[in-house]
């Protein structure tokens, strides 16, 4: 009987070694890849300050607002995805209509812009400009321009609208 159990022990040791050899090699591997995308919402435009064009005289200096350094310039802020490219499109010419509807003036826009809120460092934009938003996803615009058609001007308030189209460049 003692000899029998010695054989049993030997068999068990051999079986254990075999099992170790099998378990040491994996027949299967599993991996996972993550797919991701960051989706941005619409790019927004906020009016920070309307253009203040109060005319005290009809001198050429009064008729022109330089967007790069005139305190009367309007101010807007673009908010979007950080560091993204945005196309800025706007109509260069606009009509100012008298509040009574009878008289009108003409206005030629000039826009300047920059990623920082420093007007004097802004650069002039053309009608179809590509701009890059800052690390914080913002860009500032200053709105100026020049009045014309003042020969038959009627005193009073005049209004106009400026349409600016913003579009991500994909």
């Amino acid at each position, binding site marked *: 009987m003692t000899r029998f159990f010695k054989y049993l022990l030997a068999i068990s040791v051999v079986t254990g070694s075999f099992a170790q050899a099998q378990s040491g090699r994996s*027949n299967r591997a*599993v991996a996972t890849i*993550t*797919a*991701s995308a960051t*989706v941005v919402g*619409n790019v927004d435009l906020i009016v920070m300050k309307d253009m203040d064009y109060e005319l005290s005289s009809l001198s050429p200096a009064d008729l022109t607002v330089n967007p790069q350094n005139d305190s009367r310039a309007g101010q807007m802020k673009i908010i979007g995805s950080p560091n993204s490219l945005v196309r800025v499109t706007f109509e260069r010419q606009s009509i100012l209509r008298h509040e009574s509807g009878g008289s009108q003036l003409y206005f030629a826009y000039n826009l300047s812009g920059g990623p920082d809120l420093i007007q004097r460092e802004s650069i002039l934009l053309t009608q179809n400009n590509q701009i890059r938003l800052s690390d914080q996803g913002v860009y500032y615009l200053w709105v100026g321009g020049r009045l014309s058609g003042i020969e038959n001007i009627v005193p009073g308030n005049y209004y106009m609208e400026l349409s600016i189209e913003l579009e991500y460049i994909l």
Partner: protein
Amino acid sequence: MHIMSRRGWVLALTLLTASPVVAQRINFGIYTTSQGLSATVSGNLNFNAKQPIIASNSNTSVTITLNDDACQWIEITGDATRDITITITPDPYLTIGAGGPGNQIPFTCQFAYSNLGSTLSAAKGVAVQIPGGFTSITLPMLRRTSGVPAPPPTPAHGGYTPPSIKAYLFLYGTLGPVGNVSAGYYTGTVNVSVQY
């Protein structure tokens, strides 16, 4: 009685000897593996790497192709003499939050394999693309390029280490169309199983 006592000790020794050798080895980390077959992931399949701005409601799709830098891969290391079966299980959508309408974007995953024993840079150029709709393939770890089939592989035996080789699985795909969904970071997973 003395003999019975010795039998008891022998049986106990047998169990103690056998128990450790059936233990499992579990590795946590990006190396999902073991000594026989391993799979290493290159990185995330990032659709912004192909198109930086993915705008909501743009109704556009973004496609990463095999040749794009954004294409990712899995390096499979295993026995050069054996076949492997690869099964991929991708999520049908990339989601944000709990997902559902307005919080998910359709995702289609495609894959290609390269099993010529090439380096990674060369493997991409000779990769075989799998048509859409397939989620499982079986292929040799090392494809024979010419000649007659090799003799059967050497059986495993003591002291013998079978030759190891690397094969590559490339993953790419399409995201979209991007409908009117919430802005934010969308994710999904592609589970890949490789076995002999």
